[in-house]
């Protein structure tokens, strides 16, 4: 056990997985000597050498397209995309091939790979470094989309992802890469894909969040509970697609109210699907329409104002109050 940050937990998971499975190779921009722009791969080049930790030319469609060939030919690539806003050159490869090779070949080929992608905003980065476009991938059948919110989960989910026979888009919340430390067990353990976690039990309303927003939501929740004498259940969705309807519905059936919080913009953010599904399945228990608290429906602005673009504590509070007082 040691106390690790989220980015250290990612690194630890990569090391663990590479030690266990010789087929695993890492590839991406600046992941070798430089250890990645966020240092997620620091030290791995030294330990595993240049044939397993590979700096590629600057071309995301090459990184992902080559990973398809690597994966069907016996390796287990873990490509890194430097920032979520830079995965778009690889979009065709992601949508038309990565997500579909199993289906296109009727099971003959599969492309087990974990595409690691730092995501989210509010790190005072330049333009286009602050994307939360998980919708693009969650709308695409064949992909598994994961977003941890803590060091423990980051390691466990990443190790689970390396065991998956399906391609996983692994979204790492860069704002909390180094925000806090947590006990992370040494060695191998997994946190199952496809399972949400009830991180805090409560009776009056269910709040669903993931990634960076999870802890910010927990902070708000404890303040609202204290101020209003209510009890709030908080779910960390963890896997965004296919997501854990059972855990969500069970909670909402109990509480009768739901709020979804995310950093993506509102229109067709994942909150839309969750709200629609809850309304379909829990209508008889639902005492208020599901509230969505999201970034405003404009592209992430330059960083002087980006904090106001994402859900603020006030807006999360308002979302919770809205469903409580409906």
């Amino acid at each position, binding site marked *: 056990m040691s106390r690790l940050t989220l980015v250290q937990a990612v690194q630890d998971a990569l090391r663990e997985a590479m030690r266990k499975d010789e087929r695993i190779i890492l590839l991406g921009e600046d992941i070798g000597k430089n250890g990645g722009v966020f240092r997620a791969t620091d030290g791995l080049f030294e330990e595993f050498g240049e*044939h397993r930790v590979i700096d590629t030319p600057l071309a995301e469609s090459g990184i992902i397209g080559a990973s398809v060939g690597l994966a069907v030919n016996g390796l287990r690539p873990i490509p890194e995309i430097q920032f979520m806003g830079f995965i778009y050159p690889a979009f065709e490869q992601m949508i038309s091939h990565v997500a579909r090779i199993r*289906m296109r070949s009727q099971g*003959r080929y599969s492309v087990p790979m974990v595409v690691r992608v730092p995501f989210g905003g509010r790190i005072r980065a330049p333009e286009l470094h602050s994307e939360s476009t998980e919708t693009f991938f969650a709308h695409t059948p064949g992909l598994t989309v994961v977003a941890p919110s803590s060091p423990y989960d980051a390691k466990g989910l990443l190790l689970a992802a390396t065991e998956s026979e399906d391609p996983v888009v692994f979204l790492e919340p860069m704002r909390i890469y180094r925000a806090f430390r947590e006990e992370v067990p040494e060695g191998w353990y997994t946190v199952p894909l496809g399972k949400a976690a009830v991180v805090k039990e409560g009776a009056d309303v269910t709040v669903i969040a993931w990634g960076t927003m999870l802890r910010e939501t927990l902070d708000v929740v404890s303040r609202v509970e204290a101020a209003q004498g209510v009890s709030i259940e908080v779910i960390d969705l963890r896997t965004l697609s296919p997501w854990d309807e059972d855990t969500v519905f069970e909670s909402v059936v109990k509480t009768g109210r739901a709020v979804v919080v995310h950093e993506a913009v509102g229109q067709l953010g994942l909150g839309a699907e969750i709200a629609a599904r809850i309304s379909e399945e829990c209508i008889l228990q639902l005492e208020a329409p599901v509230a969505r608290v999201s970034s405003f429906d404009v592209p992430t602005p330059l960083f002087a104002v980006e904090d106001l673009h994402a859900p603020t504590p006030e807006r999360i509070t308002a979302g919770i109050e809205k469903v409580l007082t409906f």
Partner: protein
Amino acid sequence: MARPVEQVKRASNQLHAAENKPGDISDAALVEMYRQMVMVRQFDRRCVALQRAGRMGTYPPCEGQEACQVGVANALRPQDFLFPTYRDSGAVMLHGVPMERLMLYWNGRPEGAVIPDDVNVFPMAVPIATQLPHAMGAAWAAKLRGVDQVALGLFGDGASSEGDFHVAMNFAGVFHVPAVFFCQNNQYAISVPLSRQTASETIAQKAQAYGFEGVRVDGCDVIAVYRAVKAAVEKAAQGGGPTLIEALTYRYGAHTTSDDPTKYRTAEETDTWRKRDPIPRLQEQLRAWGLWDDEQENACLTEADALVSSAIAAMEAAPTPPPEKMFDHIYKEPTAKLQRQRDELLAMLERRKQAELEQGAAARTEGGKQ
């Protein structure tokens, strides 16, 4: 590095001279390549005919490009990995995919997409040039794993304009992988002629941007194609890195069965290329070299016809696949949601069947009344 096209054409015209009988290819292999070209052409023509008769979906014919299809397939070893496009039914079947499987595929049948386990062929790429990074990656995996295997990506002249062509070539050069990139320059991307595709004189010379060799061959000469690919495969297998091959060829037919080439090509142009038809050309050569006669020709045509006919029969006899198969192979294990949707589909089909039965019964009753 790349010879101008006129030179390539001139060279081709002397190919049937006796002294040009290849020393490096056995008589049997020459004859076999001929048979294969005939078979591929039969397959191709029958697919077009089936489409016209409404018995097959849109089909992209490769007639005219058989020397490329056959030359490539014969130069590959069984362990080599082929990354084809939609136009490469010939190479695909020669590298091991059963003919009727291909026909099912072009008939929109999911089971047609199944490639036998021991056949190293990737699903045909539909989005242009996207197969080239795959070929690069597969070759890279072979290199990293120390396996004696080469990956060959097929693509068209038009594909050389896409970003993925560039990216794949560049990666291949940097990582010096055992890959062969084989361009069938058939002069058109649908209606767009090569002059509108690139201002570069040749496609072969584009390899200079990636630090490896680019060569140009007469794509109507199966022997030339075979040799060029064989050399590139050997070089790759021996650690010599990738090669770009540009083969000058032409598709005689439409881009696909939905296309009308008279809108953008002249009859004269097509005729000129027909004169370089790879099949009569090799036949002439074989005859000149004493390897072929009328009897063999007739037997060959009959055999090809039988093969293709039996594939068509097999395709048409294949039972319709259960539509709920659409939920398989999305994830390794079907998700709860997909299982639910599968049940929904099955229930709907059941109701549809019931409704049809009832309608049928009603119609029969109606009929009885009259």
